[in-house]
């Protein structure tokens, strides 16, 4: 049964047609679920920890999370699905973009990424509602304020100055480490050249001991990420919804 989107030809477009410089590939056969990427992303992007109670309510602020689902739960034929690191898919056709009443969740024309402009956000949470991957996190409280949470007074020393620290009422999500993108582009610009693939990478890809996450210039057919994205094992999450995600998953298992 072809959906309307399929009939309109949306899913037939190649990466080249869709454009964009940055892409990511996650190899689920290699991901061991170790959570190094989750820790790395949180340290890099000043993602707050919410504590046990709020985490139990589903308010944990992970920008990337490892999903563990079950294929079968009948002991002894128990099988988990391959670990699935899920972050903002930076959809070409993002459902979160058109719904923001104040244009905080906009598409960047220069970087071709889905931005989250923290100072515009007024916390309607419509974007989080719309995201089919549920990768948007909302600051339900002031999780980063040391006046409310004195335990943060010394922990604040670790905050990354390149990333805005968010207050309550603001939505946040994976940005493909846009601060690293900007830094690398600035350095390249100062040397009078373009950013090369492999010059920098996202925090999650840098930490992963299994090298399961690859990030880079998807518009360069010779880059590692381009070659990986064209693998026969490649698939997209929730492809049938027509969001055209920028992240390709390589299926786990044989």
């Amino acid at each position: 049964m072809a959906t309307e989107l399929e009939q309109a030809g949306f899913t037939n477009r190649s990466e080249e047609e869709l454009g964009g410089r940055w892409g990511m590939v996650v190899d689920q056969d290699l991901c061991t679920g170790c959570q190094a990427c989750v820790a790395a992303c949180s340290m890099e992007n000043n993602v707050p920890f919410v504590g046990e109670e709020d985490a139990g309510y589903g308010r944990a602020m992970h920008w990337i999370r490892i999903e563990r689902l079950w294929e079968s739960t009948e002991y002894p034929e128990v099988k988990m699905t391959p670990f699935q690191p899920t972050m903002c898919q930076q959809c070409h056709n993002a459902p979160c973009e058109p719904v923001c009443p104040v244009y905080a969740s906009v598409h960047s024309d220069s970087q071709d990424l889905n931005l989250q402009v923290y100072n515009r956000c007024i916390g309607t949470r419509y974007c989080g509602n719309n995201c089919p991957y549920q990768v948007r996190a909302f600051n339900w409280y002031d999780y980063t304020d040391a006046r409310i949470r004195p335990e943060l007074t010394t922990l604040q020393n670790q905050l990354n100055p390149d990333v805005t620290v968010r207050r309550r009422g603001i939505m946040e999500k994976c940005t493909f480490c846009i601060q690293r993108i900007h830094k690398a582009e600035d350095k390249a610009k100062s040397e009078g050249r373009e950013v090369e693939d492999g010059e920098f990478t996202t925090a999650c890809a840098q930490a992963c001991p299994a090298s399961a996450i690859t990030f880079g210039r998807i518009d360069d057919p010779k880059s590692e990420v381009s070659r990986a994205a064209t693998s026969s094992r490649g698939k997209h999450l929730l492809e049938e919804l027509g969001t055209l995600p920028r992240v390709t998953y390589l299926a786990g298992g044989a």
Partner: protein
Amino acid sequence: MSEKISRRDFLKLASVGAATTAVLTGCGPASRYVVREPYTKMPEYTYNGLSTYYATTCRECAAACGLVIRTMQGRAIKAEGNASNPVNLGKTCARGQATLHGLYNPDRITEPYKGIRGQPLGRESGSVLDWDAAIQVVADALKNNNPSEVAFLMGMAPDHLFDLVSDLTAAIGAPAPVRFGALGMFESRATLSKAAENLLGQPAMPFFDIANADVVLSFGANFLETWLSPVAYTRGFAKMRRGNPKRRGYFIQFESRLSQTAAKADEWIPIHPGTDGLVALAIGKLVAEAKGGVTPRAFASVNVADVVTKSGVALETLESIVHHVVEAESPVAIPGGTALGQSNGLSTAEAVLAFNALVDNFGKPGGVSLSPLSPNQNVYHRPASAQEMTDFIAKMKSGGIKVLFVHGVNPVFELPKSLGFAEALSSVPQVISFATFPDETALASDYIFPDHHGLESWGYQRSVTGTQQSVLSGAQPVVSPSYNTNSTVDVLLRAAQLAGGKFAEALPYADEVAFIQSKLTNLIGETDGSFVAPEINTFAAYFQQHGGWWKNAAELPTPSAASALGQGVTVEEAEFAGEGEFFFVPFVSPTLAEAGANKPWLQELPDPTTTVLWNTWVEMNPETGKELGIENDDVVKIVSEAGEVEAPVYLYPAIRPDVIAMPFGQGHTAYGRFAQGRGANPADVLGLHFNEAGDLAFAGMRVKVEKTGRKQVLSRLEGKLGVYGFIEEK
């Protein structure tokens, strides 16, 4: 309001509102009134606003992964792996990433302290000393006691401090320092070492080259979690899977519960606890028979049908595994984890190593070899086994130790209570702790002379295993110490000088850096390593810059397989301690490991297989839960012959119905606000039950499960409803 407001009045009210809003927004962001102090004593090579990167070594476990810390204006802001260090090649695990939460932890000990044992830290129950007084205390402790009654108990990191203490104790006639760590206990390092000695010829950690293997049989080894060198082994695993475009490696895990490692296996075989060795022998025999020729003595006497019954593994499964092994080019088998934590752990390890000999992979790519000695090491060393710790505790109890120095380990928490370490402390007149955090052992000490955090310290760490290159990873401070702490090496050096005589002669070093350099002198002029330097100052500069020194080529100290196969390997049936219908499997939390509970971001990481956050749980098969009438979040009491512990249940389908499991890492009664009073410690139910090598048979307890009637809701990342395809009955 019943009266309508006129337009004029409305405008007046509105303008007042607007003015107020203008005042509030005009105040601007909170940071406007922050004063900015320039980094006045900035190192010359630092540019304002640009980061400075320092290479050091991670101290969250003993694997010796190299880190590069990004610092900005004197603050460490991100930990990354050192791309040159052969152990981790630029990668880090979650604990390495969260190490900054240790450096900037709100509960660090900030100054030298004389406390009252058992009392919490604070001015009411103790007093702050200055460092001169503290060093005098150490000097007196060394001088005024018979050397045989001075004891050092240390963690598995850092190595440079261990070397210093080894030198000191050797020179003054005191017993050598004892090293211990919970990770080492759960890894059964004494068992692996002994098995390697018996079958491979040296008491080293064996190295399993899974990167180049095409079939991996793991008997309980959790090499993707915290086992020995997880970053290196994860890299090896990735290479095994997709490193060779012509083949995808095949991985089989034998374990009574589906651990994170087992979740990545192509086949998870839930064998009966304690039968790993028997299964290895059975597979070995079948492989030998399939290959034809004489079955080696090691495997000749095993009864396959008997093994099938005992282990619960079907004959067809064994035969299919045999088929994989026979067809493989480079199969390898790994013993570890719960397989070694049984009363028959040593013979299990030997059986698995003999299996490797059978498939002839000793010293070959994809096979087993001995881990090389580190560059400045000439004797293999391992941490103390639980039996050796029991002997040490007996010495404490008998009054044979008058002063105990503790660094880098928290035995009150890490050792099972049944070993009686906490009680034995009362027989030691003076206990001096060098803890950085207020852990249980520090609070049970007389003095705490806090060491710097690992990121504020100099040092080096030897790579025990994980790579075939000989690696010495270096550490340097990446930030100035935040508090009035002092390097323990410096404290001991100054105390030795103060004590004079043979103490001063034993440690004739000006400071920590001079000591470390003295241990690097044998590497000067070496040409087969990561850099060459003609004299010590150049060497030290490069050592700091690169984050260590390592040999360029792989070394594969290889024994002959013949001796391994010629031995008879008898695996006795595992004996279990205590009574109860369940086998108890404690496992090291893959996110927290032994010492991560005080780092909030590690607590917030969900457990990979259960997705539980911030707490401890008991894994129980849902069928078992149904039989016993236990639901999710029901708090149960686990009772063994040695003790009891309570925790809420998580119904987990991927575990044998006769097994229950609990993660180790929580259950602290001190150690800071994020760790204290959270979860439960499975070590509380472990008893004095050892394997043949002296390691704790931590998976060899039988336990009873009692309902308490209470519920404690576990926070999980996954949703609760319909997770396993069944809706929980209310």
